[in-house]
């Protein structure tokens, strides 16, 4: 019996990346812009999504894909209550959404009648960073109470994202959050990253985010 070495050099995430690329071209073909929202639990993903729907839904047709590790519908119920289509994905304990889950979820949405799909990833700063899901933009929501050291400890999540929202900015007077220190960490990982400081509660800075997103959706429609 001989043992033989076989050279491979294949990326572990290759299969997932391929499905993600197919998803992106399907969405592009239908002129639907899509964003993937990643954050730790409690950073305000759902609040940002609901506020975004409130501000944009009169001119943009939005659907939401909600990822959770358990069979809960709390978040998707809130979206549906606002009159928007929502698909709930239960990952069955998995700590992230992957491209195949999104591919399946899209079958429940009428892409021809949508302008924007917002995906709310599982609340986690580690795993979602590794799994592309095919969206046109990746967004991280950070929040003041999480502390200013997060870019230094969870480096991967800040790599390869397109927008950063720093949420709960209204809590700055009460929490020792060094904004300079935080932003210095982000700058190393993702130089020049588009960043918005926002509060869902007071709406401070929120219009800047809405204006950015609205421009992306419009430009995307015009391009395709």
């Amino acid at each position: 019996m001989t043992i033989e070495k076989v050279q491979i050099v294949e990326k572990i995430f290759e299969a997932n990346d391929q499905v993600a690329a197919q998803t992106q071209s399907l969405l592009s073909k239908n002129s639907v812009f899509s964003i993937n929202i990643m954050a730790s639990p409690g950073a305000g993903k759902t609040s940002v999504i609901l506020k975004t729907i409130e501000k944009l839904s009169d001119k943009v047709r939005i659907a939401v894909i909600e990822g959770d590790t358990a069979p809960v519908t709390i978040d998707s119920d809130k979206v549906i209550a606002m009159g928007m289509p929502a698909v709930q994905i239960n990952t069955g304990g998995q700590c992230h959404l992957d491209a195949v889950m999104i591919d399946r979820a899209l079958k429940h949405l009428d892409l021809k009648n949508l302008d924007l799909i917002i995906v709310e990833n599982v609340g986690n700063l580690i795993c979602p960073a590794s799994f592309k899901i095919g969206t046109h933009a990746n967004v991280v929501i950070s929040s003041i109470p999480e502390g200013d050291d997060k870019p230094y400890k969870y480096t991967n999540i800040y790599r390869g994202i397109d927008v950063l929202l720093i949420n709960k900015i209204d809590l700055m007077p009460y929490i020792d959050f060094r904004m300079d220190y935080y932003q210095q960490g982000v700058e190393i990982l993702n130089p020049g990253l588009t960043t918005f400081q926002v509060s869902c509660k007071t709406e401070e800075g929120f219009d800047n985010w809405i204006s950015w997103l609205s421009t992306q959706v419009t430009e995307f429609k015009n391009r395709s």
Partner: protein
Amino acid sequence: MHELAVTESILRIAEKHAIQEEAKKVTDLYLVIGNLSSIVDDSVVFYWEMLAQGTICEGSTIHFKRLPAKMLCLTCENIFELSGELIPCPNCSSFQLKIQSGEEFWLESIEIER
């Protein structure tokens, strides 16, 4: 935390190549992982023993080749390795840094019996 999904992916890649090569058995796998990739070796091994059962990879050993996380200081051009969280340049304390390597993650090769 995502090692189960990652290990399933390793198995799929190894099986695909083993079948292409008409192997009877896979004995060893060589993974390359940059130190900035959030992968815990022990968890991969733990899942591997479960997932490989009953496959062409049953009983095989995974070898981990770890590549350092290298940072380039844009201020003094010093190159240094990170061992944990992000730190300033140990030479000049600058935070003007660029990641040079450490995000690799692939299956480099397998050893098979024909």
